[in-house]
């Protein structure tokens, strides 16, 4: 095994190593044949990954694609309302992506580089918006910032109206900066501070070092984050439903065609239309970053790391204030939810009661299902994400680009459509999975694979290929290299993918509504039910229990695994 702390290699590399292999399909086929001859284990792994993605991503999408008829597609394109909606959708993708990535980067930078006080606690904050089902956090948001909101009306005396694109912008930034944070933090952590030290001892100012050394090194992470956030914004329907007011986006329209009019064909047409901008974004990011990716590599590892150079005090404290403001914002939202759990009428009567809690305590079975399914899914998702990212970005397997794209697609599909596609695809033998817990776990794995995969890919792009080359020179097979060399170096991104998938899966909603079956109900579905039926106190109580249980599960994982579970290490 290679010792961590191998010398840093910031040399600009000419070879486009960071990208999957190009070339025509015939060249790829020839390469595939060579691969079978050269390394059977690797070829089998590739086959397994391709089969899994084909079965659980491509096949359901094909089933969804053949649902609409020609007239539905025609109506989707010709209805003026939906053309405006498409424009709105793209506008939000641009706005919310930029703001989420900026916030996510600053937050990650403050925690990993600026060493702000309490950094470890601040890593918990971005997890919160991921766990809570949107309906409950949406009501908390409205109670705080609505027309009669605690902050806007009671505290500031404002007569504001949050409903519209500006309110949506704020809500999406809050919802999606955690994705940017996760993607960027992993990369920032793996950049060896020695580089910045070297830059500064050569006479560069802190600002120049930041601009010329750190930013270029972090660019694969930033690019991956931007792509992920943009695609998640495309598929977001929870936030627009609650706070967009009269402003419409495509994902909500697709959701409403299904849930409001039970028009599956139209819903599928509108939902699938989101794949077009998603694929464009994919190639755009590739095109923009193609030049820089792979030019800068730096080996992760801890051995010879120096401390990052201390930042000027005012920078450090401004970053601290920034993180604190975000933490307070989140804190207020969750305080409102916890308040809702212990008061008789949320937003009206704030006297203390335990009634809500006793009502939902009978649902421990559902809580256990949530944790059980999410835990299984998280493990599977992190493994699959890491293995596929390794195959595509390091081994450079044939057809890597196609794999790359397919692993991204589920992020753009509104969950409702994904859930229906799963029902359509897996309702009959030989693959009859409806009615089982397995289909719930699978939907979780593939819904959250894109983020896990991108996090792993961004970190892998940081590793100098020379390490694996030396391993290969000493006779290690590709899989051996993966297990002994690569895996120890990307522990952070593996943990991040695991944690992300876990907390998202615990709060999962839109797809799972179609997949829960008698005996396999999860808590998030019940929270939606209770909220929708007007039992806000019970919904808040169940949400509080769910968040608490999920955080306890993570704490337990940290306790048992220690440093191998690298998520909370700063």
């Amino acid at each position, binding site marked *: 095994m290679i010792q961590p702390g191998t010398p840093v290699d910031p040399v600009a590399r000419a070879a486009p190593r960071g990208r999957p292999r190009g070339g025509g399909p015939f060249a790829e086929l020839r390469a595939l044949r060579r691969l079978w001859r050269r390394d059977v284990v690797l070829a089998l792994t590739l086959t397994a990954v391709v089969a899994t993605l084909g079965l659980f991503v491509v096949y359901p999408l094909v089933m969804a694609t053949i649902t609409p008829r020609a007239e539905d597609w025609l109506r989707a394109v010709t209805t003026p*309302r939906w053309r405006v909606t498409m424009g709105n959708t793209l506008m939000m993708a641009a706005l919310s992506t930029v703001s989420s990535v900026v916030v996510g980067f600053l937050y990650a930078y403050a925690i990993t580089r600026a060493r702000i006080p309490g950094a470890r606690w601040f890593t918990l904050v971005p997890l919160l918006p991921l766990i809570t089902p949107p309906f409950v956090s949406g*009501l908390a948001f*409205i*109670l705080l910032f*609505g*027309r*009669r909101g605690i902050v806007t009306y009671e505290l500031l005396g404002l007569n504001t109206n949050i*409903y519209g694109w500006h309110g949506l912008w704020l809500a999406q930034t809050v919802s999606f900066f955690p994705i940017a944070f996760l993607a960027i933090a992993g990369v920032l952590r793996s950049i060896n501070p020695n580089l910045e030290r070297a830059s500064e001892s050569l006479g560069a100012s802190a600002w120049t070092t930041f601009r010329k050394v750190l930013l270029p090194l972090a660019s694969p992470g930033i690019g991956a984050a931007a792509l992920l956030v943009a695609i998640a914004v495309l598929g977001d329907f929870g936030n627009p*439903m*609650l706070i967009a*007011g*009269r402003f419409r986006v495509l994902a*909500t329209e697709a959701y*409403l065609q*299904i*849930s*409001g*009019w*039970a028009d*599956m064909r139209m*819903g599928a047409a509108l939902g699938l239309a989101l794949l077009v901008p998603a694929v464009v974004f994919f190639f755009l990011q590739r095109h923009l970053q193609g030049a820089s990716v792979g030019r800068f590599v730096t080996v992760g590892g801890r051995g010879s790391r120096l401390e990052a150079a201390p930042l000027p005090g005012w920078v450090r404290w401004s970053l601290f204030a920034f993180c604190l403001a975000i933490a307070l914002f989140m804190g207020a939202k969750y305080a409102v939810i916890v308040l809702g759990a212990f008061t*008789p*009428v949320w*937003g*009206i*009567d704030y006297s203390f009661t335990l009634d809500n809690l006793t009502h939902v305590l009978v649902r421990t079975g559902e809580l256990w299902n949530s944790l059980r399914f999410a835990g299984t899914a998280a493990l599977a998702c992190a493994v699959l994400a890491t293995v596929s990212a390794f195959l595509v970005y390091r081994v450079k397997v044939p057809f890597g680009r196609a794999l790359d794209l397919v692993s991204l697609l589920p992020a753009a599909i509104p969950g*409702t459509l994904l859930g*229906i596609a799963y*029902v*359509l695809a897996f*309702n*009959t033998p030989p693959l*009859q999975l*409806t*009615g089982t817990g397995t289909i719930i776990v699978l939907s979780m794995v593939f819904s959250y694979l894109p983020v896990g995969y991108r996090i792993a890919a961004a970190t892998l792009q940081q590793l100098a290929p020379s390490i694996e080359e030396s391993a290969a020179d000493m006779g290690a097979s590709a899989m051996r290299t993966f297990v002994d060399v690569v895996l120890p170096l990307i522990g952070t991104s593996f943990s991040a993918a695991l944690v992300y998938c876990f907390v998202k899966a615990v709060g999962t909603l839109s797809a799972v*509504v*179609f997949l*829960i*079956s*008698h*005996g396999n*109900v999860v808590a998030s*579905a019940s929270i939606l*039910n209770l*909220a*929708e*039926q*007007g*039992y*806000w*106190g019970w919904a808040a109580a169940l949400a509080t229990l769910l968040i608490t249980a999920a955080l306890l599960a993570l704490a337990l994982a940290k306790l048992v695994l220690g440093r191998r579970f690298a998520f909370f290490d700063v």
Partner: protein
Amino acid sequence: MNDRAHHGAPPLAPRTAARRARGLAPLALAVALLGSLAPSALAQGPLLVYSIIQEQDAAAITSAFTAATGIQVQTIRASGGEIVARVIAEASSPRADIVLGGASNLHIAMTNAGVLDAYLTDAAPYLDPGQRDADGYWSGFYLTALGIGINEERFRRQYGDKPLPETWEDLLDPEYAGEIVMTDPIASSTAYLFLQTQLQRLGWDDGWAYLEALAPNVGQFPTSGSAPPRMVGTGEYILGVAFVHSLSTTIEQGFPVTLVVPPGTGGEAGSVSIIAGGPNPDLARQFVDFVMGVDAQQAFTDISLTTPLNPDVVLPAAAIARASIEMIDFDPELAGSQREETLRRWEATLD
């Protein structure tokens, strides 16, 4: 206790034990009865229900059914559109027997998709023609009607001693500008009912004049049907148009809301239907008969405060009687055929 644990049998919690004992007697009876009737029925059950009505309300009906027949029932609850989409998606291999509750337009959508079984029950001679499908694909058992929810606290603060609105026309008062909330008809089939109620009540041209006058008073058209009661409850808006039963729930939850059912309101029959090809077709028919009966509807009305269709049900004080809701003669066929035209014009009205 120790002794038991020693032998490896887990001690039964007293409640579980009692429940088991209570559940066993009718179960044994039912098994004996069914066994004597038809051998095929013996292997069946539990009955699988998709519920659009609230969990507790569905439980009131299903537990009454289990008590009466000994047949076990398992229920999953989701919103109307989601249940309908799910039933249609699962048509290749149906996973449930019954769709319980939800306005008739949802059941019509499933009928048109060919995923329901026709069953003309004899148990509901009291149903009017509009309250059941002529071929028996769905049968109504309660009434869903539109009403107005008022946050009286905010109303008094803003308008002093002004009388509360009582008719649909009262909502046109320019003083209410921006203070009304109602669900977006484009987003929801049940909100579309409001447009059609006005168009059918006043006639096409006068109906549109009404809607065009109303539009500027509406501050927001949220997309979820549960939003208007909630927004009126928390005081985000003073007035809201929503279904009577969902406003009742908001009131029951303790929100300061007053409910008004204007004369000439629109409504549909909340219905039950049988999923074609479900695992227990015979039990499903038995269940539909049961839902039409007085026992099921009494239990349902007592807990949900909805308006039952079976005339023999004794109304609880807080529920609104069928006779006291003055409904227009609503034509669902006409509403269905005008959908595209109506929504296009509605959209143009808003812009």
